[in-house]
């Protein structure tokens, strides 16, 4: 057990855990066993079946309940006398403000997305509370310690933007299965079942005949005289048949590419299934619409099987019918969700049919679900190890044992004989806009971009602000809040639609804008530079934010090694900094030159961290781990699965 001083520090401590998922369950258990008495835990999620293989505090009977609350009850069973305070809530809710964070001695993250991590990082900086951050994917994981002013903050190393695909690759020239998934999920599924008012490129590149005119909007609505089957076939024939024919008519596109072949339902379903019905009955006993399944209707069981074109076509039509017949109320509001069986079936079938059309190998529902849902591979063991390492660092933090803080990487293949590799934390990055006050630079066409573009694409998407306030000098241009009076709200909404140069206080080249988030207590200044032209494909935002660069410290080598006994040589070891459920970033830690231990004085250095990149998965046996080195994109959110081949 721990030393007396450690035990005292542990007993007095009040800790906040953010996340009660894969890492969270392990962490709460290990904290409780280690003697922690006062633990608060925030998690907005409810329990799902696919959590049960590793989130061991939960049982089948808990599915649907709050993770934070069930985790508390499970831990109190073996440590009944400690205090655990659960919050079934989003850590970004306003109640969790700087004052809330200030009551804790340390904050421990076991989160599954970049957005929430950035938010917690800012609150910890503002409240001056130490943060121990963590992430895992498969057999890889890491724990890092972030202390304001002493070590780098979570955002000191810029996180890569999610990879996005050129629109035309998705709409017209897919060459990989993932392109078909993106099309099926973000275009077709969204078009048929999502918000009708959302802009959608489903038809954009298919030709003028079905361009984004009013007429085309109606095309995807079911007509009054159509039954489900007729409607499904009309959609099918349109997107897999007619649209492909239209695309083929543009011969220029296919000069150096394989031509796709149009697919019509009548050619696939010859004879026996022409008038197929009655299958809905197999789902008729189901009261809960969220459990209807086209696979069940059609008697397909194994999600690992790759369906034939006929089976995909039947699943496509059947799932469409089930949406219309059983889940009509949701249509118009649906957003793709990896845990929505019917949605996964529809997207798998649609992606496969499109893949067949373009000569791309089809995939099983299991694989398609992994790609569409950005599912990260997760096992109990890595989470347990990482949780143990978090507690070890948390205890050091409580004792202010500054010299011994470590970031630790859990590796799949040993580096210098190590599977668990401790590295001394880095100093804060002086150009980090989050923990230092360095201004950023924004290149933008001030005559074309509206304030709305700036708010959505920069302030929210890039700077990760939740409740922003934008000022030019002493003039307030925009703010968000509950306590604004009507005049202000009207004023701000009209500002949103104005281009920057025409705002009440015009924003032009040379202007310095101040952007603040009152909840995160983060302020940053942005120098505006006017620029006329932007490359549509490379700079789709029509703006370019810079100034937040990798610390020179990361590039040069100026960190002393964690320990000076081991003189063995250099290794370049990739380490993935990941999240439990959603992939994020990876750090490549490489050590420097080979030395003898006698040469390593306390000032010399050999370890340094280098580039930050991403990738989804390290296991080569994964089907989707082929030559494709740039995975997924798409919905503009940061929590997408990405990967990148290591150098």
């Amino acid at each position, binding site marked *: *057990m*721990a030393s007396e001083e450690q035990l005292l520090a542990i007993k007095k401590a009040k800790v906040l855990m953010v996340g009660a998922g894969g890492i969270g369950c*392990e962490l709460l*258990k*290990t904290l409780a*066993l*280690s003697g922690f008495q006062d633990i608060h835990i925030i998690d907005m999620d409810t329990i799902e*079946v*696919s959590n*049960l*293989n*590793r989130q*061991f505090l939960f*049982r089948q009977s808990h599915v649907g309940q709050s993770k934070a609350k069930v985790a508390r009850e499970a*831990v109190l*069973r*073996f*440590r*009944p006398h400690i205090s655990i305070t659960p919050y079934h809530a989003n850590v970004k809710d306003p109640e969790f403000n700087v004052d809330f964070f200030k009551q804790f001695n340390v904050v421990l993250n076991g989160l599954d997305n970049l957005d929430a991590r950035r938010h917690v990082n800012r609150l910890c900086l503002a409240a001056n509370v130490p943060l121990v951050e963590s992430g895992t994917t*498969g*057999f890889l994981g890491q724990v890092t310690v972030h202390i304001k002013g002493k070590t780098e903050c979570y955002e000191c190393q810029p996180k890569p933007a999610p990879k996005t695909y050129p629109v035309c690759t998705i709409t017209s020239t897919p060459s990989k299965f993932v392109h078909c998934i993106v099309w099926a999920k973000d275009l077709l599924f969204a078009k048929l079942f999502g918000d009708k008012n959302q802009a959608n490129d489903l038809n954009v590149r298919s030709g003028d005949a079905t361009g984004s005119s009013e007429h085309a909007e109606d095309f995807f609505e079911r007509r009054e005289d159509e039954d489900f089957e007729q409607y499904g076939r009309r959609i099918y024939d349109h997107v897999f048949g007619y649209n492909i024919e239209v695309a083929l008519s543009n011969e220029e596109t296919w000069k150096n590419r394989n031509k796709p072949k149009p697919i019509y339902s009548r050619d696939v379903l010859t004879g026996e299934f022409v008038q197929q019905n009655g299958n809905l009955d197999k789902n008729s006993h189901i009261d809960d619409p969220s459990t209807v399944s086209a696979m069940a209707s059609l008697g397909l*069981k*194994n999600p*690992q099987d790759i369906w034939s074109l006929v089976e995909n076509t039947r699943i496509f039509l059947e799932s469409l019918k089930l949406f219309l017949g059983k889940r009509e109320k949701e249509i118009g509001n649906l957003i793709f969700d990896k845990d929505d069986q019917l949605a996964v079936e529809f997207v798998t079938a649609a992606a496969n049919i499109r893949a067949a059309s373009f000569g791309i190998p089809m995939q099983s529902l*299991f694989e398609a679900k992994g790609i569409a849902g950005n*599912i*990260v*591979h*997760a*096992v*109990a*063991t*890595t989470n*347990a*190890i990482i*949780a*143990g*390492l978090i*507690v*070890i660092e948390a205890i050091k933090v409580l004792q202010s044992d500054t010299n011994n803080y*470590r970031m*630790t990487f859990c590796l*799949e*293949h*040993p580096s210098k*004989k*190590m*599977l*668990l*590799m*401790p590295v001394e934390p880095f100093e804060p990055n002086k150009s980090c806009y989050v923990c230092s006050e360095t201004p950023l630079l924004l290149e933008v066409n001030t005559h074309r971009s509206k304030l709305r573009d700036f708010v959505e694409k920069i302030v929210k998407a890039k700077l990760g602000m939740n409740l922003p306030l934008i000022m030019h000098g002493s003039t307030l241009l925009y703010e968000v809040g509950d306590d604004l009076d009507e005049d202000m709200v009207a004023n701000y909404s009209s500002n949103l639609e104005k281009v920057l140069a025409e705002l009440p206080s015009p924003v032009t080249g040379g202007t310095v804008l101040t952007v603040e988030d009152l909840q995160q207590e983060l302020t940053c200044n942005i120098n505006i530079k006017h620029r006329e032209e932007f490359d549509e494909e490379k700079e789709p935002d029509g703006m370019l934010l810079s100034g937040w660069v990798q610390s020179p410290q990361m590039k040069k080598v100026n960190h002393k090694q*964690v320990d000076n006994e*081991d*003189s*063995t040589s250099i290794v370049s070891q990739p380490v993935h900094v990941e999240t439990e459920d959603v992939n994020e970033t990876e750090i490549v830690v490489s050590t420097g030159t080979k030395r003898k231990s006698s040469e390593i004085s306390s000032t010399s250095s050999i370890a340094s961290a280098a580039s930050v990149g991403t990738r989804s*998965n390290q*296991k*080569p*046996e*994964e089907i989707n781990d082929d030559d494709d080195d740039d995975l997924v994109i798409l919905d503009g959110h940061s929590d997408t699965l990405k990967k990148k081949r290591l150098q």
Partner: protein
Amino acid sequence: MDSEELTEQETALYDRQIRVWGVDAQRRLSKSHILVSGTKGTVIEFCKNIVLAGIGSLTLMDDRLVTEELLSANFLIPPDENAFSGNSLAELCCDSLRDFNPMVRVSVEKGDLSSFGGDFYDKFDVVVVSCCSLSKKKLINEKCRKSPKRIAFYAVDCRDSCGEIFVDLQNYTYAQKKLDDTIERTLQYPSFEEAVAVPWSQLPRRVSKLFFASRVIERFEQAEGRNPGETSIADLPSVLKIRKELCEAQALNESNIPDGLLERLLVGTKEHPPVCAIIGGILGQEVIKAISGKGDPIKNFFFFDAVDGKGIIEDISNPSTGS
């Protein structure tokens, strides 16, 4: 490998881990039988991990009655003395573990594993021992080796904030991934007895100090007839004497086994829950690798010390034979 399919229930439950190790590995796991002897904190962590992973069966052995000390890193047993009612540690752990995954058969076996005959061992694919004396470790390891089938043997122990795992996979062939290629690779493991008999002068330079320190403590406990972990600071003089003898016999500088480290190992008999979680996690991964035949296994020792934070693999085998 037979091509029996996983059930829908299994596919749904194991979705995230099948994405890590594949359907084939999951099938092998579900047919594997694991025996653990000595169910303190580290082994409990290990049991949780493999039961969640979906092995076929787990057999627990530990006839000790529950004490406060035995429960310090145990999250399976509520601290309610009335509920113990004369049950052994293994029996009390068994019920909770069943609850973690209804698809895994968890049972208890009574008695002393080292006294059991060969056909008892034949039922298992993996044997894990903990809280076990030097001679029993050797004996059980030998019994595993004598079985007509290959039984993977692991010995695991934590003292203070340090942990040690020993692995014997005998003659182990697996598919090693090298970039895009898969090559078949065979590793020869020494038994525990052979490994600890390797002359220290033949070991690679800078072997983890924990390796030497553990051997000294082990030797001390054996000589005094103590159960593993039954030590205190009062034993330090005797332990230092054994260190001196060993180092002289092995021509090793005594500074390779610092007093401070020996002191920690003697005094820190109460478990460190974070270290149990880390060692139990690494052990879980290793056993999953050995069953599935996927991934590079540890050969043949793993050490972790929370003080420096390193988790290190050491190959302690005869350099000429590799085993």
